[in-house]
């Protein structure tokens, strides 16, 4: 006779029992932690330190909070700008406000002047300890810009624009060039046309992607396809109106302005990188203890005369 308490136990039964127990016990907890801040990455920093600018602004964003777009009202941190060459430092002021009607952010700013050829560090301190830093060196000099169609191969800014038989502007015939010397890297190239513009449109058109390095000449070349810009500015909706650039009397001045910004020696080579590559937290960053990029820059402008095409 087999007693109730002494019934033989089969391994299969025990295994099934154990499996069920694991499944059920494992299945009781329904909590889950998604946001798990990392003490090695506390803030992101984005901005430039610009020689000759009257205000320096750096975006400072805490990473470990649950605000996805924007930031909480309190930064709970102190941001300082250190001149590593001189051994001095200034505290940046916190400007918390809504930008672009989207979300409130923290912009740390200072009217402190930035010197050329100098190494700076932006430091975020929590309880007196530096937790996130970005270190950069400003360019030693302003970019030297030259546009000399008469003496060089630079193409001039000529109107009226030339169009192909299919009605598209001919790039070769509607592009002007300028050359940049004396810089480690070009950080930006922008053009402003002397045209009335809608208030919502930014005055400067970006031409950074058209910057080419000419290493044998130790210089950079900026080529501006101005007919494309003018069509964009005057008829932003494709297929709208005639295929012609603005009439010369529509210009408020006989020249366009090109602003070229030099980047410091640590300026990344990120021209042509995809947005996905740019967005990776481990790329194009000089921030430790966080993410982002703070670079030193130095800008200058040149006037490009608008000529009548012969």
């Amino acid at each position, binding site marked *: 006779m087999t007693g109730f308490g002494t019934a033989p136990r089969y391994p299969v039964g025990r295994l099934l029992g154990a499996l069920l127990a694991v499944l059920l016990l*494992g299945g009781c907890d329904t909590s889950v932690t998604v946001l*798990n801040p990392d003490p090695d990455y506390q803030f992101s920093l984005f901005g430039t330190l610009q020689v000759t600018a009257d205000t320096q602004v750096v975006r400072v964003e805490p990473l470990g909070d649950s605000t996805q777009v924007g930031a909480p009202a309190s930064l709970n941190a102190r941001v300082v700008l250190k001149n590593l060459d001189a051994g001095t430092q200034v505290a940046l002021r916190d400007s918390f406000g809504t930008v672009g009607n989207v979300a409130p952010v923290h912009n740390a700013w200072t009217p402190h002047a930035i010197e050329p050829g100098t190494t700076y560090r932006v430091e975020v301190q929590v309880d007196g300890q530096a937790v996130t830093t970005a270190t950069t060196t400003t360019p030693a000099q302003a970019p030297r810009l030259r546009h000399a169609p008469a003496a060089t191969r630079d193409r001039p800014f000529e109107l009226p624009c030339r169009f192909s038989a299919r009605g598209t502007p001919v790039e070769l015939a509607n592009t002007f060039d300028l050359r940049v010397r004396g810089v480690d890297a070009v*950080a930006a190239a922008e053009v402003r046309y002397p045209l009335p513009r809608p208030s919502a449109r930014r005055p400067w058109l970006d031409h950074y992607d058209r910057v080419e390095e000419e290493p044998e000449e130790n210089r950079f070349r900026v080529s501006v396809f101005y007919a494309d810009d003018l069509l964009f500015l005057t008829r932003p909706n494709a297929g709208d109106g005639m295929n012609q650039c603005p009439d010369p009397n529509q210009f408020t001045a006989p020249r366009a302005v090109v602003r070229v910004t030099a980047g410091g020696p640590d300026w990344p080579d990120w021209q042509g990188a995809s947005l996905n590559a740019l967005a990776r937290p481990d790329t194009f960053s000089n921030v430790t203890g966080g993410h982002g990029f703070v670079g030193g820059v130095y800008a200058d402008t040149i006037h490009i005369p608008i000529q009548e095409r012969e």
Partner: protein
Amino acid sequence: MGLVVAALLLLLSGGGVQAQPSSSTEAATLRGFVRAAASGQPLRGANVVVRRLTGARQGAAATDEEGFYQVSGVPAGRHVLRISYVGFRPYRDTLRLQAGERRTLSVRLSVAARQLGEVTVEERARLQGEEAGLRRVRAADIAAIPTPGPGSDLAAYLRAQPEVTATGDRGGRLYIRGGTPSQNLVLVDGTPIYKPFHIVGFYSAFPGNLVASTDFYAGGFSAEHTGRISSVMDVQLRSGNTGEVQGQGGVGPFLASVRVEGPLQKGRKSFLVNVRHSLIEEAGPSLLGEETPYRFYDVTAKLHTQSASSQCSVTGVRTYDRGRIDPDVAASFQWSNTSVGGECLLFGQASAQTFHVAFGATHFGNEVRSTDQTRRASDTWKARTKFDLTQPAPWEGTVQWGGTIQADQYSYALNEPFLGFTSEDRFLLSASLYGKTTWEATDALTVTPSIGGQSLFAWDGASVDPRLRLAYQPGSENDRTLTAAVGVYHQIPTTIADERDVGSIFRAWTPTPFLNKPLRADHALLGWAQPLAPGLRASVEGWYKRFQDLPVPRWTPLVRTNTTLARADGRAYGADVRLRYTRDPVRLSLSYGYGRVAYEAAGDALGAWTGEDLVEYNPPHDRRHKLSARATWQGDLLSASVRWQYGSGLPFTQVYGYDTLLEIRGRRDAPTDVVGRPRTLYRRPYRDRLPAYHRLDLSAKRTLPLGPALDLTVEGGAINAYNRANLFYIDIFTLDRVDQLPLIPYLSLQVDVR
């Protein structure tokens, strides 16, 4: 490669058939349809046996999904024909067949009152028995799954299977043995349909009372199905009643339904129309105490005509879904399917061939509108013609071959907040051919080799898919079965996904971005089934799938629909175990599924910041353990069903922070001017696991006769009976937690009018 093409051409040429020995050509062929006498419905799986007067068997067959049978190689002379089907009175006749005669004999079987015990399975059941990777789903199987009615639904049945992983009870996405939803081929009466599953996971375009049968291949399918690399759901809707007009109306808390069917020409032509519309949006707040912003409907219509030597139908399906997966987020999803197609099965006296042709067009559209009024939309069109020819083989078995021509139009337009607009519009023409033979090598062994090829006209070359299926029944009875399948599978289109959150259901179809490199999978399956005791049957099947050239979303912290795809390889393997006990009035079922899915991609291509050259990860549908237990009791007055299911946690990605990216390059984004592009900074993707999931569903049903032609069916039950807070997903961008549906008690009423 050349050898494979030559073999395919030889198979397609039918050359083998021409070489039949003269003794075979003098044999007679018997074929026709087996249908229910009262309704005219084709009976699938009916056994057809031809014997000599002495009792020696001369030939046998089982009817296919259209009720068609063909017994070839019957010697001339007098024979006894017996056709039987469970629940119907058998048909017996004595025939005199001439040498070389091709006789058409279509029969109608009458329902037998309580004769289940008398039915004997005379044909070797391997013709309709266990097959590798195949689950033949009958209406009764679907009805046994507790579903908030009225009526049952194929979707609820599929979700209960160990082969199937669903990421939640909303969204309509099914992952089959490591594959993704875009790798599943769903056919309704031979016409593809892209996403027939409704936003509430219990429902699809296939109500249980419309499904005649479904062949659900979780892998290892033969080459007549090309173009998808994971699974096939071949749904045959039943036709309307050719004998009398019938109607049905029902209402429950989730939906209301109406069905009308009847003869257009008595005994030959019929119609069927079924309409269902959701009510959950209106009923949810009072029933569940929470908002349930889900609306859907489906309309199905079928015209059917049949004769002794042909059967044709035209089927139209329209589905519409709209809703918010997260009730607290105003982003609204919408998708729709419109599918119209026809198919015919024909044969004549002059030939031993049967000819099947299907043609149809299908459209799938889906869109999501965000709170900021940005819109992402995708439309996909497909027009398709397919034909199949089947004929007796020189060996014991059949030869089947056919082809498909299809035109596809893919377009999408994605308007992304912070990122702008992306669009694509592609038109593609493709064709495929296949050949297949079934060789009954011995009484115990059936071998089914097949080979298919498909070509996209815009690409160089073609993909070739050799496949092989085996079924071995060593015993003399239908008891033990060994099944196996191996094969190569290719697929041209894929989907790009919205990686905003796991609950996002927006998908845009597009051709694979890797030129001349279609998605590829290699399948291997091995299964065993046998009875353990009277009424108790066990089966186990191991499976392995290797994936190559899968387009997977590139990892990016940007919050966007990711149109940048990286190439990944993958492997999935596991095993499913089933125990079934059937003894009237009880049916018990216990199933356990183990599976593992892993992808592997180059770190640079994937955009991974893990520091590894080759990154291996488990995609979000890698559910390791699935357990399901079901009990059904079918009494004279009442039927009841209980189901409990368990699923281990799915992979998810932990986040360590959020910020907004400013593009310092070109000084394009100044801190004072723009907020930037939102970034989600996550740890190693899919490394963590969501909590496990389990749920108990109950239902009880009783049918009350209200008159000679009027029945009332009352069904009550509860979904998630112990009200467990099963996590559906966590939106890693908003940290919103969305749970699956809570306890849902329901009561539905259905009236049947004959």
